[in-house]
């Protein structure tokens, strides 16, 4: 993991958190991680929290609302609002596990991160390590999440993880993940169907 060049890409800093989720702020001008991607936050004492980007929120204010009514906004004004003005992009992160003393666990982190802690995008190596550990137990956090588009979050995550696993030689990982999802939702047909529909799209994109 330490050799993965993408693992150290800082994408933002923590604004607020609780034991299940957190919100990070980042500059609108930077490349922030896409919906469903895996991020990690160093909590100190060899503990890192893992989470999935579950929402991306871009706030407005009075000036932006006035500017959108203007035809032909110049690039300078757009850059001014993205770079200089204090309106961060807010990334909501759903915790799905943690790593303590090098051991990955699919349980919630022992404590939430603190204000201004760094949020980093996980590279492929980190994604493979996290999703291979244990028996995909972390998928329950996605399926049980309230007020989130669970089917789409799961699909976005499985697309990222499926690609990483395939590129690292595990062609069967995606199938195992689908089996796990079906097992978890076998008594809930109403929720299972839209999830399977979303996953069918992922399967096509992965070419499996």
């Amino acid at each position, binding site marked *: 993991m330490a050799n993965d060049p993408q693992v150290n890409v800082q994408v933002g800093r923590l604004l607020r958190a609780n034991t299940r989720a957190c919100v990070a702020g980042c500059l609108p001008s930077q490349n922030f991680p896409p919906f469903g991607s895996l991020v990690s936050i160093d909590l100190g004492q060899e503990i890192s929290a893992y989470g999935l980007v579950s929402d991306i929120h871009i706030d407005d204010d009075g*000036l932006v609302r*006035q500017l959108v009514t*203007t035809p032909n*906004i110049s690039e*300078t004004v757009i850059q001014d609002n993205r770079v200089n003005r204090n309106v961060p992009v807010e990334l909501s992160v759903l915790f799905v596990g943690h790593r303590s003393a090098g051991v990955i666990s699919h349980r919630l982190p022992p404590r939430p991160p603190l204000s201004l802690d760094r949020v980093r995008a996980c590279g492929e190596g980190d994604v493979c390590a996290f999703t291979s550990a244990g028996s995909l137990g972390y998928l329950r956090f996605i399926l049980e999440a309230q007020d989130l588009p669970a089917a789409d979050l799961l699909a976005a995550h499985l697309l990222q993880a499926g690609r990483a696993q395939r590129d690292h030689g595990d062609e069967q990982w995606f199938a195992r993940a689908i089996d796990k999802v079906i097992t978890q939702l076998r008594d809930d047909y109403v929720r299972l169907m839209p999830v399977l529909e979303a996953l069918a799209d992922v399967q096509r994109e992965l070419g499996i």
Partner: protein
Amino acid sequence: MPLNYLGLQPQIQQYAQNANQSQAHFRQVLENARELFKTCASQPYDEIRKRCQGSGKRCALPLGEAFDQSYPPPAEHQPCMVLAADGSQIISSPHDAIPISLINTSLICMNTGSSDAPQISITSEILSEDRGGIEFNLLSEDLISLRRDVAELRILNDWTAPNDLPVAALRDGPLELYHEPRQGDQFEREFKNYIDGLAALAARDFTLAGYIDRTRAGLLGQMLAIYFEERSDGLAELRDTTLLAGILPAGQRSAIFALQSSSSDNYPEALRIHFFYLNVSTNDNDYIVRVEIPAWVAEDTDKVNRLHALLLAQCRIMGGRPYPYLLHRAHETAVVHFDEKAQLQDALAQELQRQGLDVPQPSNKLAAKGLQKRTRM
């Protein structure tokens, strides 16, 4: 306690009735003023200036341009650097635990020929007394405002040009100091600093302008009232924006006038304040603002044209409520919010404590005002 709406009801009706009556009188005055404005424009300008100067009253002085005409913006607008400076202040209150005065000045710089984000710089200064220590005594609001004006010119002068493009520097509000040089060494010293700041900007050949939104000035009306002494009823109270509405088409400026005021003689010739009116609207709803410029800008057609085009372009950015975008951004970055003042006072209290000094308490009145309001269970 809420307002006594029952008691206010008749006063609201009376207010509207008074407004209605004054509108009727006002329409007559306006009609007369527009006729006199046209007549006046055909008179010899030397004679108008002579009479106005003889009166000693605050008014407009016509220069070379025909003042019953309007002037369109230039067809082309060359790239330039635009600077906007704005300042805000914390005014010390005797009720505060630590009464401090602070000036916060911001400068925002945009290259109109580039797509890069504008550059911003902010200078915060706790006002100090003569011998260099922090000022614990209360400073007058006028003096702080004067120091803020000086600080705005200083931040413009401190800016280093990254290229050879012409530079336009905008400020919010008039260039003429309405705090004026009052009695006392401090006022005189700050006024001199202000004049020095203007002179330094003139030396750098900046196109300096003060943008006055919703001006209440009646400088043209006063000029007419002086010239047509016998027909001057109500003219001196007439706002220039009202007089020019319907005369000044959207996007066009008025003629340039010199400003005659009680403080005019305090400004050296090259720095004397001039002004023009500009209709920044893009439709039939006139929105006329006053733009103050110093003599070195007023006498340079290229600079006036650049300023004219630039102000319109800046106002267009803000859409349906035209106002120069950069001036708004300068204000946004300069303004000191209440919680920031509280944070600064906390930091000062901690430092005083760290250095073994007593931290005074806020007044009982302020403490009572800060009590939490009753809330729901």
